[in-house]
């Protein structure tokens, strides 16, 4: 993926994603939840959006 080297493994990222899921962080924020899972899937696949805000 682009940017700085990422020292975190895919398994650890998945654990962090699962932690947020279990914490219910997006229970009342479905748009953010969908966006988060979209970006998380890209991170896990090693992809990135080059587009800047």
């Amino acid at each position: 993926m682009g940017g700085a080297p990422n020292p975190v493994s895919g398994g650890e990222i998945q654990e962090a994603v699962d932690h947020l899921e279990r914490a219910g962080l997006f229970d009342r924020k479905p748009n953010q939840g969908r966006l988060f899972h979209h970006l998380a899937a890209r991170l896990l696949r090693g992809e990135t959006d080059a587009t800047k805000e």
Partner: protein
Amino acid sequence: MEALGRPATFDPKTDSIVRVEIRKLRMTLDEHFHRGAGKDQPIILRVPKGEYRLEAFRRDSGTEPPQAAVRPALSRTALLIALPVLAAIAATLWILFRAPEPQLEPVQAQPATAAALSSVRILAGNLTGGFSDSAGRQWDSDRFFEGGLAAAQAEPAVTNVDDPRLYLFHREGQFQYHIPLKPGLYELRLYFAEFLYGQGGAAGGGEVSRLFRITINGEAAIDPLDVVAAAPGRGVAMRRVFLNVAPAADGKLHLGFQMLRPDKAFVNAIEVVPGLKDRMLPIRMVAAPQPATDMEGNLWEPDSFVIGGRREARSRTIDGAPVPSLFQSERFGHFTYHLHVVPGRRYRLNLWMAEQYFGFPGPAAKRRRSFDLYVAGKTLLKEFDPLREAGGPGRALRRSFSGLRPDGLGAIRVQFVPSVN
């Protein structure tokens, strides 16, 4: 961005929705991992400022970049104050219940610790795996139980809720759950659908055929529960809600399910969410197959616990709509919402509607609809014509009713009965 219905070629410079949502997500993650329940998590996820991607960092590695400047997130109190009303629609319909009414501006809407509390959602009897429901909430396979038997439901699924998967399995017998929770106040919701007893069921009978007791930390919370009576009926989903639930001294919430007569106790699903002291969380429902989010971030769930009527997508632009996405679908016809709430309290019902069929140019231009609205034997609306009341078609209209009390079975039953069309 595909996640928000945008193509991969979207231009964030011109797509303000994606830009706003990514900014909110950045703040949500930052709040969670630095000041919230995730402040001790070893791996931090964040959205870099100005970019549309996630980064992962090990907290103790020293590789984490400086935090983005974060505006303090709105408190739940602020959200509720900013959204003092809401509603349902008969043509286009959404519903909000808030308890107890009519505190428009709650002084303390959320315990200070609630942000750090986690939700627990358990599919009782489901040993195969969890799923995310239509509102994006994760339900886990059965856990934390002691005793009883896991069972699958062979009958067709329930039809009065948006997501029948909660009712495909159950745990039955005499059993307990010991659910670890952080100290704090929670709202407990238990979900049920009776299939064995009742008309057409294998065991026949109906009401009073299966009675059982539910205890919370050793104290009787319902004694007895008759699912067929409360739902009402066989194969009809229902839920019971409990306030001010907290873990016992050992850090666990102890739920007991005790059979009375003549058969086993059961439960289909258990949900524990951060709650409000002495107040039920608002019920927000939209008559649509997908959830909606209002401008304050409140989730409006697809309507459930409703029998009858017909849900139909609509595409008109509604004048005066506080949240346009809530008017993209409607339920019409003859239908009743069975809204399961905490007994012994008063509630306010807000309905939003807009006439999206009659009154527009075309074959229905000269025609009208009208209907009656009944709650607990009282007539709240009589021959109500949303087109006339709103002053024309495609205009948002609100009606609010305070002081509603649930029946003895813990439900407010909102009945829409057509008088014309």
